[in-house]
């Protein structure tokens, strides 16, 4: 069983590495943990009224639908495809999180600008590079697509 971490900026494009993860699984099942890091609340009011479910309601239906499609597409390969908001982007916290889930490698898109999906999002890409785990960069073959779901279509290197 492979355990993979995949950071996402809540766009459909950032789900693209799932294709590669499943291709590289080599017949093995895998657990894919999607994460998006949010800023740790510091104000007392923020902490008092911290509702864990709140950011989940802000996920776009298109993003959730795309996740659903990939889950259907790789039903035999994907054992767990989970999505979580993490309230910190500190190295210690992320390492602890990955140790807890026995993560073997981190996948991310190369030359891709991971944007801040929500108001309170923070970028975790540079921190993930310092976590001493193999980071696999996926080259996304872009054709200058427009639209949303088109960016998720997988293109073999030879076809491109």
């Amino acid at each position, binding site marked *: 069983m492979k355990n993979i971490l995949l950071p996402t900026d809540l766009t459909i494009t950032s789900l693209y590495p799932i*294709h590669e993860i499943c291709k590289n699984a080599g017949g093995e099942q895998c657990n894919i943990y999607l994460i998006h890091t949010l800023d740790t609340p510091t104000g007392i009011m923020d902490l008092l009224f911290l509702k864990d479910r709140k950011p989940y309601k802000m996920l776009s239906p298109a993003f959730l*639908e795309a996740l659903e499609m990939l889950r*259907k*597409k790789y039903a035999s390969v994907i054992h767990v495809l989970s999505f979580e908001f993490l309230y910190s982007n500190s190295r210690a916290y992320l390492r602890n999180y990955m140790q807890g889930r026995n993560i073997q490698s981190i996948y991310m898109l190369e030359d891709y600008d991971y944007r801040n999906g929500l108001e309170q999002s923070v970028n975790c890409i540079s921190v993930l590079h310092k976590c001493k785990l193999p980071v696999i960069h996926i080259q996304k073959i872009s054709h*200058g*697509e427009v639209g*949303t*779901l088109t960016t998720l*279509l997988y293109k073999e290197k030879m076809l491109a």
Partner: protein
Amino acid sequence: MKIQLKITLLFTLLCLSVVVLLSTAVYYFANEKAFQDFYTRLELRAVIASKINFDINFQNQEAIENLRSQHVQRLPEEEEFIIRTDTIDRIRNTALFKTAGEQLFSDALKNGKAVARHRFQFFSGIIHQAHTGEYLIIVSAVNSYAQNFLLSLQKILVTSCIISTLVLFSIGLLFSRQVLFPMRDIAKRVTNISVTSLHERLKVGSGKDEITFLAATFNDMLSRLETAFETQNNFVSNASHELNTPLTAIIGEADLSLARQRDPEQYRESLRVIMSEAEKLKAITSGLLELAQSSFHGTLVYEQVSVDELVHNSLQVARNVYPMCNIRLDQSLRPEVGLGLNVKGNAQLFELAISNVLMNACKYSGEKQVTLAVAASKTHVIFIISDQGIGIPTAEIKHIFDPFFRASNVKNTKGYGIGLPLARNIVHLYKGNIEIHSKENAGTEVIIKFPL
């Protein structure tokens, strides 16, 4: 009855019932509890009477009697009754027994003392043990103070009830007028909006109250009406324009060939032109017919349609019409369910919708690649059709589903603006969803979702 009057009456009735209830309670408790001290005064008089009449230690009873008549104020209609307890049965028919009530006698015998009241006549009785036997001493008097007090209380309460009714009704009237003011305002402004002034909107306040919501809903409805009117107008002008062009060509061609005698070759040429223009006309009218049929909401056919077959047939149709088109079938999101991917609906209509969108993609992307992909979520089968063609200007995307609408950058391509509205009608007919994303000169993506 007007709502304003209803609100006023309801308000008055509610407040008045509270006022009446309060007044009744005040009167009741004043009547019951406010005169306890009068019983004490009567009891004192009963004790004095027992001392005077029975106490043998009082030698000078006459002197005490004088003292009492001089210094203790006589109460209105004050009376004293001294009855031997064993003779009580004999007085059962007297006025005293009837007015004071049997309760007084039995309570006094049981507890040693008792009080009773008949309207404003108060009674107080005590038992006195004399050496000649047991006596019941009853003192009765009329409490004229209580009588006056309660009468004036009654007057005050009734008067204040009547006055408060008037006050409440006027306040209610003002209040309901205030509450309904925004409604009347909305009604007044809505009456000013007619077919010619559909662009006008109601003023929406900044609050989150129901009235603001109502105004916003009205504005939404106006926007939809305006769009519908505009679409209708566009449809008529576009349709007449589209039908007019080939007709003008036919008439012009016929006119020209009839102007003078021509040789058979020229006639044949004219007829060919007329024929091709007539075919255009036919294409437009059959397109219109399909459009009209697709928005028909009668009984719908629901059968299991194989997605693979649907994709195959749509591709076939598009490739037949545009043999040069480079269509790629993308399987990278196709779920792993083997042959089992089905969708409920009418195969012909679904095919028509998908092939129309595909043909559009082919038409506007030259020889660049067009991709058709299939995916599935929990609830929908999703068809993704994307091209890298000329795209649609952002400002025109919202009109793209209007019949006969053609984007401003398609002047060099033949078309009637029927395909997309047709596809949209079919998708909506089967409770699906169609989305379009586009960037000018970069490409277009159409996502069609049919419920599983």
